[in-house]
């Protein structure tokens, strides 16, 4: 018990005194995950829009497919990407395995279904009159799409934040295709796994606290958005 108190104290000290190694790991995590979510958002939301406004058979099937991908295990995505990127694999020549790019790609695959499924739900909640009003006032299609996105911005933001929460906290992909290389591909989650296996709990707990605070913040913000959504639409 004493030991746990002591390590927690050490962890807080690492955090508060700005331990360089620790904060560089945090920074790397955010950099990779922010890239992943920002690169995926336009495609995910546009597909969500297309699924809602498109009128072709099979839309239900595609939606069900993305919904089922919401809970895909991250190690499976990692494994899948590893097989593709490994030197003997089809994309081996790109030499992407154990790079940040590989982590970004993996996390993009992970958050894409979140953006499509939750984005679809948000867009579906938009009043049909938004589309009609915008069109009849002479707006071109792209402007109408932006108008609809703006009207349901809280729902879309919730989709993006949920996707971000999923990628920043995943460990399977980062471990398998990132490789946990210090200063290069080690992020919060893989560092926690490694430090713990070495019996060095202080840094692990410190990083865990960062992740926990982030998830609290995200959740608080999401419920704030949910309440906003209720007021506006």
């Amino acid at each position, binding site marked *: 018990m004493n030991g746990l108190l002591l390590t927690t104290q050490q962890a807080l000290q690492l955090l508060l005194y700005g331990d360089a190694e620790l904060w560089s790991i945090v920074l790397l995590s955010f950099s990779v995950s922010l890239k992943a979510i920002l690169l995926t958002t336009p495609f995910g939301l546009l597909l969500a829009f297309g699924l809602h406004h498109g009128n072709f058979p099979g839309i239900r099937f595609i939606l069900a497919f993305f919904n089922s991908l919401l809970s895909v295990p991250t190690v499976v995505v990692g494994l899948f990407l590893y097989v593709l990127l490994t030197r003997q694999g089809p994309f081996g020549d790109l030499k992407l395995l154990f790079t940040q790019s590989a982590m970004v790609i993996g996390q993009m695959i992970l958050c894409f279904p979140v953006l499509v499924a939750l984005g679809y739900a948000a867009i579906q909640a938009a*009043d049909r*009159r*938004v589309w*009609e*009003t*915008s*069109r*009849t*006032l*002479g*707006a*071109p299609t792209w*402007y109408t799409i932006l*108008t609809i996105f*703006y*009207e349901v911005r809280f729902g879309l933001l919730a989709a993006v934040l949920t996707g971000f929460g999923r990628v920043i906290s995943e460990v399977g992909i980062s471990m398998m295709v990132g490789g946990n290389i210090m200063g290069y591909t080690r992020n919060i989650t893989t560092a926690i796994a490694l430090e713990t296996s070495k019996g060095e709990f202080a840094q692990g707990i410190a990083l865990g606290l960062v992740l926990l605070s982030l998830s609290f913040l995200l959740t608080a913000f999401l419920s704030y958005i949910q309440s906003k959504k209720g007021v*506006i639409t």
Partner: protein
Amino acid sequence: MSGPLFVFHGIEKTFAEDEILRKVDLSLYPAKCILLTGKNGSGKTTLLKIIAGLEKPEKAEIEISGKLHCWKKVMPIIRKEIIYLHQQAFLFSGTVESNVAYGLRFTSLTREQRRESLKKALERSGLTDLAKQQANTLSGGVQQRVAFTRAWILKPKVLLLDEPVSNMDQESREKACLLIQRMKSAGMSIVITSHVPQYFDGLADVQFDLVNGKLLQ
């Protein structure tokens, strides 16, 4: 009398095997007002939306200055001339001013002209004092007025009004009718749907009843 702006021929529309419109013809003349009546669910809204290009018909042709075109081909070109107003207006989130100005950015007006036009339109509709208000905090009647202004500012050739006064008290109704009269005098072609034709006695030039997918005079 000048010739029609657009003549719609043979509009057909089916919803799930249900023939809502059967070969409907409708001519739109400048400075004329058509009153469209019909039972609930007879297809009035659907007809207006097809004319505005918001709903796809199974079949329809449009005659412009004596020439026939298929609906699909010319709708993208003429849709800018035709504005549809919902029975219950939808205002975008933002201020009254931003709502009224919404369509101006798609016109060829310069920034200066747009500002001038916005100012005039707000004055004309008595909305100047409300310009900075959030649109969704206003009462239903005022929202309807904002929607009117938002359409009027674009000077469309055709204005389609879906039950424009059904949710209004007598005073706002009379005001709205006056406004519609002014738009008509300004040369707009206007189509109004209503359950209560008496409201538009002095205003309508022709009245059609939509029965079983056909227009009866």
